[in-house]
């Protein structure tokens, strides 16, 4: 389980989980789940287009996810952000359908882009993931207070001279970076589940942002490690275990939150 090709898988899973735990915490706090779903999902169309014209799929992924982040950020100022996100997502998927219709040999790649091939990570794929992951975590730690304030109290943030719309766009770019790097490795679906489940559970366990953030990272790490080990033993796709375990954490968090609330009421 820890030999040969699995070393890369463990390494990359750990990095991805760390980044997902950090960025996902703010995704949950800001209610950006739809955007976190749409950007990596739509970006896979970019990979399809890149492979059609013979460019490295990573470039296509990057262009499309950045384009998605910027256009969602821009259009959200005039329309509802969930509507804009839905429309941007379907437009990218439709482009992806058009790209795929023009090429003939894409089918296995679709599956791997959507669901990931974490067990087939090569050492050359490690570096871009590490770099982009570091950039994302760094960006979040620099913007930490501003992100927190614009998420929790947008009015106060605006009165202090912060631009919530601008911060939102920057945050969408962070989502784009953190998901692009992971799409070829772990798939668009898996990264989404990892960005929602563990942070949502962490918020149920603690109200203090720092504690919840740390918990979110820990839960994401445990989820990914457990998924990888289960996938190795059963041969089933990693994405299934990540989705199931993440949802399990959320259910656990909900139960804990209800239990502690009822206990607090009893004490009163």
């Amino acid at each position, binding site marked *: 389980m820890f030999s040969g090709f699995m070393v890369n898988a463990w390494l990359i899973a750990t990095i991805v989980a760390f980044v997902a735990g950090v960025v996902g915490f703010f995704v949950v706090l800001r209610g950006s789940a739809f955007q976190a779903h749409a950007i990596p999902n739509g970006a896979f169309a970019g990979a399809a287009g890149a492979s059609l014209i013979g460019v490295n799929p990573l470039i296509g992924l990057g262009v499309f996810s950045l384009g998605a982040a910027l256009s969602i950020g821009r259009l959200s100022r005039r329309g509802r952000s969930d509507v804009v996100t839905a429309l941007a997502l*379907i437009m990218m998927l*439709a482009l992806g*359908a058009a790209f795929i219709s023009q090429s003939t040999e894409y089918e296995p790649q679709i599956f791997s882009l*959507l669901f990931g091939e974490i067990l087939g990570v090569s050492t050359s794929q490690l570096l871009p993931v590490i770099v982009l992951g570091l950039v994302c975590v760094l960006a979040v730690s620099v913007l930490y207070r501003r992100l927190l304030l614009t998420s929790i109290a947008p009015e106060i943030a605006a009165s202090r001279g912060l631009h919530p719309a601008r911060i939102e766009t920057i945050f969408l770019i962070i989502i784009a970076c953190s998901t692009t790097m992971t799409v070829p490795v772990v798939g668009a679906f898996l990264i989404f589940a990892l960005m929602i*489940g563990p942070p949502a559970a962490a918020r149920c366990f603690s109200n203090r942002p720092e504690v919840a953030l740390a918990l979110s990272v820990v839960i994401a790490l445990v989820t990914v490690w457990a998924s990888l080990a289960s996938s190795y033993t059963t041969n089933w796709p990693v*994405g299934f275990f*990540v989705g*199931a375990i993440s949802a399990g954490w959320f259910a656990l968090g909900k139960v804990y939150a209800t239990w502690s609330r009822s206990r607090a009421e009893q004490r009163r």
Partner: protein
Amino acid sequence: MRWLFEPGFFSSAPVHTAIVIGAVSAIVSAIVGVVTVVRGQSFAGHALTDVATTGGSGASLWGISPLLGFIGAGVLGAGAMDLAGVQRARGRDLATGIVLGAATGLSALFLYLDTTRSASTGITQQILFGSIFTVDPSTIPVAVIFSVATVALIIWIYRPLLLSSLSPELASARGIRVRSLGLLFMLALAISVGLSSIAIGSVLSTALLIGPAATSLRLTKNLRNAFVLACVLGVVATWLGILFAYDSYYWDPSSQGLPVSFFIVAIIFLSYLASGISGVRRSVARRADTGNARVAPPSGVREVA
């Protein structure tokens, strides 16, 4: 007319089926879509297509009817979202996201088992993108029955549903059971989305649900007009898309033509952008009228769009 309709357009059986099933899906999606956009549940509307797709891949695994799989999974997904707290505006996207994440995980498993057992790899693409040209004509009656039922359900709960969407407090003060109404609407949404994603693919399903509704809500403040306009927009976009896709096979003899979903989505997306431009013009005109450039947009339906 030769320049617009390439030969054989009107005599092709797949085109006939596509035109009928496209129009039915467009109308149902538009009606459910207006309520979806007003209630701010676009994410749930989109997520349910993915959840329904999970059911589709599960159905092909166990050999049950795909239609049953799509609609059954959609209804189960809607129930799970309700359980996870989709009714409250706060944390709504989270509840949707959790269910979506779990469902796509299951999807990964089903597709993996499908491909390892039957070696039919084309299934991924077929389920995700579906094609309106490959619809089996025998699904039309079932689709029409479910569509009529969904629209009837929406009409039946229309007034209380609208009130509970725009002002939950007022609605519950009047004795409306907001939560059960919300669940009822989620069921209608799940059925219509499951239906349209099996008929036209999950991408088009979201496009027809959100696009025409959002565009029409930007163009008119009157909800009744918005329903009509959304239906018209949806049907026109679908038919134009079918026409263009059919013609695209003739544009370049060497190519394979472009998928119909691409054309329909492009038309819908562009019309949404265009409605934004007219909205800007109108709000500029309104600002000029009031002579106050910094006036905030009025709340209410306009906000909803």
